[in-house]
């Protein structure tokens, strides 16, 4: 198992999310049993974390940046997304599957991250979320992908 890390500073632009996520996923060499976790669980969750950071954390301010740190250590894939906002309390987000919320357009991002990832942690300030996915021992970044 080779430990690797990728670190980016992204502009606060929603249109760059897709390319950033595809780049990260493409740098993960997959074995069959974890392919779906990367293709689906990780990809969707990373989009959610980045869009939350840009829209709610940074308030769509194009002058602000979002920091993305991806680490692979001991079979755990970790992505930390940090914005430059004041943070929020994730405990105050209502359940989007409750009957009174099911017809709401928004409010499913954090819910999906928690459902799709093995662990989701916020820092005390609430402006940095860490996503954790447990992978098999054969999961690695290619050597040339180190940033």
């Amino acid at each position: 198992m080779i430990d690797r890390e990728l670190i980016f500073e992204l502009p606060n632009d929603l249109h760059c999310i897709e390319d950033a996520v595809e780049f990260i996923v493409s740098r993960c060499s997959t074995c069959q049993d974890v392919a779906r976790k990367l293709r689906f669980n990780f990809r969707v969750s990373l989009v959610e974390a980045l869009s939350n950071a840009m829209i709610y954390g940074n308030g769509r301010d194009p002058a602000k940046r979002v920091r993305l740190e991806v680490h692979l250590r001991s079979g755990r894939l970790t992505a930390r997304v940090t914005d430059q906002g004041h943070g929020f309390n994730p405990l105050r987000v209502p359940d989007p599957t409750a009957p009174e919320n099911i017809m709401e357009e928004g409010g499913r991002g954090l819910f999906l991250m928690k459902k799709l990832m093995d662990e989701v942690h916020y820092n005390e300030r609430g402006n940095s979320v860490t996503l954790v996915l447990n992978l098999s021992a054969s999961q690695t970044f290619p050597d040339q992908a180190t940033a």
Partner: protein
Amino acid sequence: MAFDVKRETGEVVVFDVEGQLIVGNRQELKQAVLAELEGGARKFLVDFTNTGYIDSSGLGVLVSLSKKIREQGGELRLSSLNEDLRTLFELTKLDTLFRIADSREEGLQDF
């Protein structure tokens, strides 16, 4: 994301979503569907045969469109969701909100 708009027999407007339906491009689909709604269309099918993944913003756009179409007496159906996309709809319980067909042909039946 790119999408094709086709009118099927029975006046159903079909949108083929190619690629991703996520926060960076969801407004394109929303504007295209609303333009057809304002133009008088009432029957809509969004087909996901060529769709990679959807995020919560994409799901939200579908919910919003469904509400607007129902308010005008119309219906929005979905078709051809792969295993990943079905999981998303099941997790969020949106599978209870939409009529989801296994195939485009099934979605067009009895519309």
